[in-house]
């Protein structure tokens, strides 16, 4: 079924009776070519690109809860490709290009809104680092602008230029960055994959792998054993838990990240803004809520909830740069489990067990990667070769020293 304004009009006139299920709810088959574990953004986009770009349709996505119950439905929806390192920048730029065409590809309006992402800087050293980064971005084909304080003030007059503890001296702007309606991304990909014959199976938790002679040939689930030629793990924050069932210990720790939304407000904030001297980033959703977040809680956890010190830290950061939000009220806070890797960068790779593939380590920044992650994972699964923009996301990179450490924090996951 094609979605369009006309279709809405017609359905409106005829009582909205003709809409189809956005995805079917099949019972799992005994065997597939590929099983994707995890019905989050990355799992669903992998299924979408497998079936829509690589012609692999005998695929199942197994999701332990409801579709999008993980981080895809919990994040602060920021997309950007303002990365510094050559191993990352082309990948995220590829992702941004896929975002830009997402609605056309999927015929689902996930509201990709290129409202611009501003990273504020507060010192000369920070500016220098942003110049380096902005230039990296342009050199690899992305867009970047460096704004001085005057230009920034014109764009965001409400920032605290007079009284800030750390003076706001300018910003790195990526105009093509922005936000996307996160749930719709999952739904759109699910719908697109479903239309090509992918089985999307909810409430199906994988709790074991069937490994014979060093080869993974299936999974054990609460709906029974399901076999496949290839098994693709794509469970973000649950990566450590799941892969341990195949005896694999990952260079990943699990941490909580919280996010917050305010009550609905009339438009006040056009861009995405990131504070450079504290932990705070914010945008305003199309519904009017300020969607914001900050640092991870810092301790290892699988509980999808956080605690007050970070809530306060984040709000302090917000008040520090835009004291107009003091009278906006925080409506809801929640947490998601981040798959924090040792260098802050992800993995899209085969494992040492034949037939078992791994995608994870996205830290708090995997939403923007959703299209490219799915595309590159699909590429790897379909061709058994890494996609060129993701070829450095290997599990053995630590062995070789090919670390991809954007922030220069070292092998301490909670610092990335």
């Amino acid at each position, binding site marked *: 079924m094609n979605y369009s304004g006309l279709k809405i009009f017609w359905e*409106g006139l005829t009582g909205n009776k003709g809409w189809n299920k956005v995805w079917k709810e099949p019972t799992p088959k005994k065997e597939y070519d590929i099983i994707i574990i995890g019905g989050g953004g990355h799992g669903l986009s992998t299924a979408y690109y497998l079936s829509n770009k690589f012609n692999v349709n005998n695929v199942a996505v197994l999701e332990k809860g409801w579709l999008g119950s993980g981080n895809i439905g919990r994040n602060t929806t920021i997309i950007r490709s303002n990365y510094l390192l050559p191993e990352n920048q082309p990948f995220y730029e590829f992702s941004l290009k896929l975002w830009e065409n997402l609605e056309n590809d999927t015929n689902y309006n996930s509201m990709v809104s290129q*409202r611009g992402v501003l990273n504020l800087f507060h010192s000369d050293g920070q*500016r220098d680092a942003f110049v380096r980064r902005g230039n990296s971005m342009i050199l690899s084909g992305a867009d970047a602008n460096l704004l001085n304080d005057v230009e920034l003030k014109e764009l965001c007059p409400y920032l605290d230029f007079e*009284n800030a503890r750390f003076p706001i001296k300018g910003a790195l702007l990526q105009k093509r960055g922005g936000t996307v309606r996160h749930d719709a991304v999952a739904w759109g990909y699910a719908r697109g994959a479903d239309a090509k014959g992918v089985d999307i199976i909810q409430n199906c938790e994988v709790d074991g792998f069937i490994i014979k002679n060093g080869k993974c040939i299936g999974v054990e689930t609460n709906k029974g054993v399901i076999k496949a030629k290839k098994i693709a793990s794509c469970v973000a924050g649950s990566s450590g838990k799941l892969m341990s069932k195949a005896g694999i210990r990952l260079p990943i720790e699990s941490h909580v990240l919280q996010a917050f939304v305010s009550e609905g407000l009339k438009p006040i904030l056009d861009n995405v803004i990131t504070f450079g001297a504290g932990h705070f980033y914010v945008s305003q959703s199309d519904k009017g809520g300020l969607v914001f977040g900050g640092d991870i809680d810092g301790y290892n956890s699988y509980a*999808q909830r956080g605690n007050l010190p970070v809530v306060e830290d984040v709000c302090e950061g917000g008040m520090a740069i835009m*004291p107009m939000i003091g009278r906006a009220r925080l409506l809801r806070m929640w947490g998601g489990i981040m798959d924090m890797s040792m260098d802050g960068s992800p993995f899209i790779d085969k494992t040492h067990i034949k037939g078992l593939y791994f995608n994870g380590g996205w830290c708090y920044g995997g939403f923007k990667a959703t299209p490219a992650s799915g595309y590159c994972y699909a590429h790897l699964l379909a061709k058994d070769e890494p996609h060129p923009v993701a070829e450095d996301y290997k599990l053995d990179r630590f062995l070789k*020293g090919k670390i991809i450490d954007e922030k220069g924090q070292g092998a301490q996951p909670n610092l990335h």
Partner: protein
Amino acid sequence: MYRIKSGGLINRNKELNFSFNGKNFVGYEGDTLSSALLGNGIHLVGRSFKYHRPRGIFSSGSEEPSALVQLEEKNFTEPNIRATTVKLYDGLVSNSQNHVGSLSWDFMRINDYLSTFLSAGFYYKTFMWPKAFWEKVYEPIIRNAAGLGKLSKESDPSKYDKGYLHCDLLVIGAGPAGLYSALIAARTGAKIIVVDEDFILGGSFNGENININDNICSDWVKSILSELNSLKNVRLMSSTTLYGSFDHGIYGALEVKSYNSKNTITKPRHILWKIYSKFSVLCTGALERSILFENNDLPGIMLSKSVRHYCNRWGVIPGNNISIYTNNDDGWETAKDLKKAGCNVVCIIDQRSNIKPPIENIDHILGRNIVKAKGNLRISSIKLDNGRIINTDCLAVSGGYNPNLHLTCHQRGKPKWNEVNHCFVPHNPPKTMEVIGAANGLFNHEEMFNDSKIKLTKILRNLGFRKIAVEKVNISKKVYQISPFPKKIPEGKIWVDLQNDVTVKDIKLAVHEGFHSVELLKRYTTLGMATDQGKNSNVLGLSVLSLIKNKTMHEVGTTIFRPPFTPVPIGAFAGRSRGKHFKPFRLTPSHNWAKSNNAVFVEAGNWLRAQWYPIKGEKTWRESVDREVIQTRNNVGICDVTTLGKIDIKGKDSGAFLNFVYANNFGKLPVGKVRYGLMLRDDGIAFDDGTTARFSENHFVMTTTTANAVTVFRHLEFCKQCLKPDWDVHLISTTDHWAQFAIAGPKSRKLLQEICDPKIDISNDKFPFMACAKITVLEGIPARLFRISFSGELAYEIAVPRRYADFFVKKISEIGKKYSLVPYGTEALGVMRIEKGHAAGNELNGQTTAHNLGLGKMVSKLNDCVGNTMSERDELNKDDALKLVGFIPTNKKQQLVAGSHFIEKGQIANLENDQGWMSSVAFSPMLNHSIGLGYIKRGNQRYGEKVNAVNPLKNEITEVEIHSPHFYDPEGELLRG
């Protein structure tokens, strides 16, 4: 009739003036904004989110979904304030929100008439063509239509504060269950805190007309409060919302200090409390729910208990002809009280047919449903399922009670469905929380008091309080009997979520399209995402879902309730940490002296450091900086370097410890000597650099960079405590205890000789480069002297205890006059270090190795030190690795730009050809042109080669020559002189 002559908890002698939409009204002390509006006959107060349907006052509590107003004006204005929670004050200004045109004629109401095209999730299916229109056309329209109230766009003028409280027992909710529990606990001597969001304590008993111990219940409240007030172990907190329950028995509470925020420029408006409690009892009562029928969202349709409370507590009768619609006994209580207050009760319609009317003398219709309400901006009539039409201007609806259990869910408790009272009841609350009374699904007072008695006894015993005396209460037994949800899904435009405009139709469509898990339903339709977080809509929506799916309510389950219980201002979470107080300032010991020398300061982490010291006639910062550099290099300069991290290291194994944490060898450092040290991270990347001096066999003093002072100390503690726990090493951070100054320049020795104890020989022979000593200066001030140089000059660093710093720096600058001593700031410091090719933060950015820095040889292959094994990994030791070198522009007039990338001449500027980047630049006054440091592939083998430094951000290309990083005195003769 709106306000009755007597009764209730308002003071009719104290009139308060307020305005709504520009019109002036009068209310009374004790009113809320909503009771005052109703008291003036005002029902219509707002518009709904999507369809802009008229909205009235629906409830009397914090769950209010509809009566959201814009409070106050200008920078005090505050959006989305629930009129039901504002204590009325004189001069209050309020306005309705979310309409185009007037409140009674809202142009956006057009959405309501187009609603068939705006069904659940319609926006996911359209606005995709043409592509460019989303950001330019569709989205701006949607954004403007969305949102409710407005922010002022100005800085929040109010003050906020925070505090911590500790107790044995936290009582959440001061209704009958809470007060009774509090009393039992208080009498044992336990330390208790009672919080309630209302501005008077007593909960539902302030609005009920029932007798307890033969007196009206509000009197019982008074007597208990007076006893609690007299006890020292009790803290009663009204206007305090417990907004969240967190790990480890920590609770978040928000106290409203002043409802009138115009008074809060100097005194706090809110206090954000963190309460640490050994145990808590949740006594938050229950919230009434509505019933589904067509147009059940019209103003004038209110919750039945609220209507009763408006009548009993505020003396307000919200209509002239009130009808009641109920499916349980509680609706009848409302009828009784209204009648008693002299109000015209048209009739009560009870869905149940097989009951004996609990109250006599009231017109009643049993076994009937309302199918539709009519009215424009307010309800005017209702239609029953037998076709009968009843005229009414206010309908009190009682669809049963939902325990107010949200706080039991903040740590993932999952409520379960109770088939008797037809409501979700708490299940798996946090381990240190017990739920009592209506919050636990007990809607009968007698049972509630018993529940409290039994649970409190147990809780208090477990807390170690054994003397428990229970207060007797006599209360008539009130039955609560309710009919289950109807078995048929009602037809028509029926509201489930009043604020977000989610209707029964939307739920049907969403389920039809596959969004039938509760959480998906919520996200697809926005059911329960309004500011009441589903307090009014959740269970109603689930009842529809359970009918469509033919599942029990328990199978359907609820969505997860998240903190905060009610919305909390972001300003309150930030408290005092805003503006200049966002982070504390760290001031250097010479701060005042620098200030008196006209210094311009710069933030360096939390420090404020002197950046340069302009003197008369200097127009640009460059003039000042150039002068400071030249004068230091020609004569002598002084710079406060206290901000460098300083760590005292003592113990028998200190030498071995330093060998372990530094990449280069320290064990053999002679006493009285300083050595430059490079520290690696455990992944082999360069971490920090600095110097360490050895004052005695077992005493070292380490310095770190300013930026890494904390991280290095933390790292050392980790190494000591976790990696080498058996070693005799003791660490203490002395960054703030020693004031340290760099004294640099050809005349530095002469100057120092004047202040040093004359017995100490600091001649080049006796105190050569890299020497250190404990000395005294200025007649007995203890000091540590190091002959080290960051500037490349003959230079020293001298440290004195911080308390002498001001005296010291004043004295030395006085004595220094004859040597033309100049104070220099961080900018000149930076210029001189770039002239000398020293790496700093821009180079040591956590991504570079010792090899990159040109310090590869320092890494001891023999030592087992942190990071050396990992630093040997192949990818970190490639032949074409980046090397730190210097750069000069071919055209000496050009300025270099830090952050430029290097591209070989003739090649296209793209990622593939990217050879490295410029990390730091400065104008060298000694060389009279711009110089830079940067990383470029094989840089150390390419001196003299020309490459392009490109800065595509500004479309600039500068030809540069690769140069040794040592621009000034490359042989280092000066610093040894």
